């Protein structure tokens, strides 16, 4: 069946939420949240501390076919997912599904377990490195399910995903399971992505390397939701969890694009006192912060809040008083981690508060602007942030589709070409963010406004900002790199990409071995 973004979804994969019918299609619908299995603890209680990860797994009654979950706040420095999965493997448990908020290069060991048939299901936002290659090669028994950060919480709350055991890495915890992300040896600032897991999983295990005296409050993960606590030597590599400070790009091309983004923002009436803003962690997206400051000062305005993944430039704006509050779901550097722990105007929120489309209003819905990157953008403004030009899984929708859908003005910033790859192209390999949610594309060779936003085009005209069509940008790119051949696919679907509302946005098939003839 062909969906709203023109992708053909095999009938046998279409589930209870159907195929993608458009942004806001389920708006106003009511539903009953999935029931949660709880356990009554009415007697006097001692410590929840157990001696090892294995003991916790045994006590949770883990069996073949179960689903376990992990969060990705430790990013490339995560030890928890691999540590737990190695123990599960050693215990001979098979047919395991991993439902993680994201997976990356720290999880090569899981790629091996897919090849060995121990892990048979993957549900995640990000999939990279060996893991992406193994899944793309068709070695996972069931198609991977890829969701946005908001879509993941929706799936948990609607019961599309049932987590049997959540293993939550926590920088600090007390022996009753109250867990925080500040303090400890492997500080990550916030635990936003683990909060839904703690509330909905049948069993919750906290894994920490820093036990602290009770009460460890205010707790990101509350002891009332926790079954067991395990203390290990190290939950992560602090150097890989957060770099010292996100590097501000010196690349003239990236800086030029960032400056153009700020110009576009300032040309809209949304750029007024109390505006709200989110930016990605990529070079040009991050550099937009630098160009906003003089524009805000000149207009004598401040930002009400900055949302999402946080790094040093946003903290600088908060400390200089140009931003009133930071609403944080992930910290990309140590400056952000420190601010999350110390600054009273820097708030930790849950992934549901951030981006879930199935609650009564997430913060993304109140965004004026979001600046996002892309691997590819096509002439329908569809964005791909998941698959490479070789068709292999190597990215993450993350909060991209959520923020794009929620913001009044979504700006994609990307170079026209990367080497011989045309970033602006005829058809993206995979649609991860539908074009109807994208308003402006800023490249190093020009700006294109989505024809669905004549208002923005008029504001740019009034401000004297030149813009062209997305087709012209594509033609310019193709005139330099040549017209790419379409990728050739096998029939087998290796990953299903869900839209925020659970409908199917696209599928990724196994790539055919290339032949030069």
């Amino acid at each position, binding site marked *: 069946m062909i969906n709203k973004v023109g992708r053909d979804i095999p009938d046998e994969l279409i589930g209870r939420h159907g195929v993608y019918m458009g942004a806001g299609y389920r708006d106003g619908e009511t539903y009953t949240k999935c029931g949660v299995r709880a356990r009554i603890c009415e007697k006097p209680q001692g410590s929840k501390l157990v001696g090892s990860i294995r003991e916790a797994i045994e006590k949770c009654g883990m069996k073949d076919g179960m689903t376990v979950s992990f969060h990705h706040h430790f990013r490339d420095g995560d030890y928890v997912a691999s540590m737990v999965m190695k123990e599960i493997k050693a215990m001979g448990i098979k047919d395991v599904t991993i439902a993680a908020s994201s997976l990356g290069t720290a999880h090569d060991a899981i790629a091996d377990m897919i090849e060995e048939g121990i892990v048979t299901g993957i549900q995640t936002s990000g999939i990279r490195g060996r893991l992406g290659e193994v899944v793309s090669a068709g070695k996972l028994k069931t198609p991977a399910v890829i969701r946005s950060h908001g879509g993941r919480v929706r799936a948990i709350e609607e019961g599309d995903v049932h987590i049997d055991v959540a293993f939550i890495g926590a920088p600090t915890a007390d022996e009753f399971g109250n867990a925080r992300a500040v303090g400890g040896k492997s500080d990550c600032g916030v635990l936003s992505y683990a909060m839904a897991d703690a509330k909905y999983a049948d069993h919750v295990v906290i894994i920490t390397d820093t036990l602290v005296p009770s009460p460890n409050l205010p707790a990101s993960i509350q002891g009332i939701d926790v079954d067991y606590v395990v203390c290990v030597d190290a939950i992560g590599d602090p150097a890989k969890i957060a770099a010292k400070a996100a590097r501000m790009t010196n690349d003239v091309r990236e800086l030029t694009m960032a400056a153009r983004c700020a110009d576009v923002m300032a040309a809209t009436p949304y750029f007024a006192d109390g505006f709200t803003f989110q930016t990605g962690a990529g070079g040009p997206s991050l550099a937009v912060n630098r160009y906003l400051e003089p524009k805000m000062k000149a207009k004598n305005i401040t930002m009400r809040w900055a949302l999402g993944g946080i790094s040093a430039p946003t903290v600088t704006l908060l400390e200089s008083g140009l931003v009133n509050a930071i609403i944080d779901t992930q910290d990309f550097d140590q400056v952000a981690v420190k601010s999350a722990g110390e600054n009273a105007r820097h708030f930790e929120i849950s992934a549901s508060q951030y981006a879930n489309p199935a609650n009564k209003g997430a913060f993304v819905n109140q965004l004026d602007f979001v600046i996002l990157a892309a691997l590819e953008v096509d002439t329908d403004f569809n964005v791909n942030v998941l698959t490479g*030009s070789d*068709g292999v899984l190597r990215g993450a929708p993350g909060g991209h589709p959520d923020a794009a859908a929620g913001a009044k003005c979504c700006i994609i910033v990307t170079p026209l070409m990367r*080497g011989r790859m045309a970033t602006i192209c005829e058809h993206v390999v995979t649609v991860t963010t539908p074009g109807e949610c994208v308003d402006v594309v800023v490249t190093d060779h020009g700006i294109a406004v989505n024809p669905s936003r004549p208002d923005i085009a008029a504001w740019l005209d009034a401000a004297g900002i030149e813009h062209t069509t997305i087709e012209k940008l594509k033609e310019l790119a193709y005139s330099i790199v*040549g017209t*790419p*051949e379409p990728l050739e696919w096998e029939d087998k679907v290796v990953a299903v990409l869900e839209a925020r509302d659970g409908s199917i946005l696209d599928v990724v098939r196994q790539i055919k071995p*290339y032949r*030069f003839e």
Partner: protein
Amino acid sequence: MQLINRAMAGTLESSDAQISIAPGKDGIVLHIQSTVQNQYGRAIKQSVLDTLSKLGIENAEVDVNDRGALECTLRARVECAAYRSAGIEAGIPWEEM
């Protein structure tokens, strides 16, 4: 053009291509490896064969390690490798290229 030695041109930097060329006996034996193979593999093959043909090379072993080079870069690297292989250092017909 008469190839004499094995010769190379280009680098493995992004947006470049490294070409190795050596005299051959059985026509053009071409090996291509490219970071953009799925989208440009056949175009790369065609560019290399065209360039060799223009230079009048009918027998050669050619290895292409492409890192997303534009077509103009690719052709220039092949020409350079060929001239080096033929030992031609002066009198290159720039106008014709």
